[in-house]
């Protein structure tokens, strides 16, 4: 007997030790929120859509620019000027018709951000600035939602997983504070094309583990592509954290 097409798609997950049919079903039922579909977000969304994450909400107010094409493979030269989330949703839906993709071409803040986070099983921070990162972290802490944070610049990247037990574990704000400033953005400092994709793909793995209850979350991981070096660090809960300390 031939299996249904959707079963064929999932065959390598079903046969994967410590994953199998149960985790595959949980992944099919999962809702992942992706904030930002730039370099890390494109890679995370593509990997999650291919892996069969049931529902993806993509949030980004940005439009495709020629300078994005070297590291954001969901976009083509013909897409320049269009809303990133619309292009990404169309492309991913064509490749993976079995999943639901909700594009939101807006800058979510306040209650709207909190509602979007609350509706998701896990949020992926693929944004490109500290203000957005702090806002998403607060919404995740407020709603008790797990957060997978990833960032990339120059030759380097970082991945970390937070929550959902913020009463006993750190949040993103325990790790980064208002004093932290990015040395530069992509425009100023540049970024090697594959670095964001490396980070975004790792974020997808962490998200899959989270929504399926498989594996253990990664520690804060630092990657230096210029030497191929990885460092893994522990992050402690900050007793004075303005976001998660009182929880």
């Amino acid at each position, binding site marked *: 007997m031939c299996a249904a097409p959707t079963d064929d798609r999932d065959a390598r997950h079903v046969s994967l030790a410590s994953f199998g049919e149960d985790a595959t079903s949980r992944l099919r039922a999962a809702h992942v929120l992706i904030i*930002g579909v*730039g*370099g*890390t*977000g494109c890679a995370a969304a593509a990997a999650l859509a291919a892996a069969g994450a049931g529902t993806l909400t993509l949030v980004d107010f940005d439009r495709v620019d020629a300078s994005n094409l070297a590291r954001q493979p969901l976009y083509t030269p013909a897409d320049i000027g269009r809303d990133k989330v619309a292009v990404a949703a169309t492309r991913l839906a064509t490749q993976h018709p079995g999943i639901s993709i909700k594009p939101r071409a807006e800058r979510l803040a306040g209650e709207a951000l909190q509602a979007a986070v609350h509706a998701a099983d896990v949020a992926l*921070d*693929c*944004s*490109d*600035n*500290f203000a957005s*990162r702090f806002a998403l972290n607060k919404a995740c802490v407020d709603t008790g939602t797990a957060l997978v944070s*990833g*960032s*990339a*610049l*120059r*030759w*380097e*990247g*970082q991945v970390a997983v937070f929550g959902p037990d913020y009463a006993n574990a750190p949040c993103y704000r325990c*790790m*980064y504070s208002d*004093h*932290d*400033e*990015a*040395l530069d*953005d*992509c425009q100023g*400092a540049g*970024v090697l094309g594959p670095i*964001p994709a490396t980070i975004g793909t790792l974020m997808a793995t962490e998200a899959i583990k989270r929504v399926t209850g498989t594996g253990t979350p990664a520690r*804060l991981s*630092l990657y*230096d592509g*210029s*030497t191929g*070096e990885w*460092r*893994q*660090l*522990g*992050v*402690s809960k*900050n007793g004075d954290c303005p976001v998660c300390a009182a929880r």
Partner: protein
Amino acid sequence: MKTINVRYFALFRERAGRDSETVETTADDALALFRQLTDRHGTDDPRGHCKVAINDVMADWDSPVADGDDVLLFPPVAGG
């Protein structure tokens, strides 16, 4: 005097011109150590441009440093 093994990650390797170094210091905390190092290497980055970990755990600038500690300096990254 205490002996601290300092490791420079990513951008800071380029700035310091080395992967790591062993320093003899009287610094009591991470910030005092950082100031000695930035003086030595002629960089004047505000500390907001640097994160610090001690013995593979993220630390604050007022975290104490002890003889034999491994201190990692790495840049904040917010890009996507």
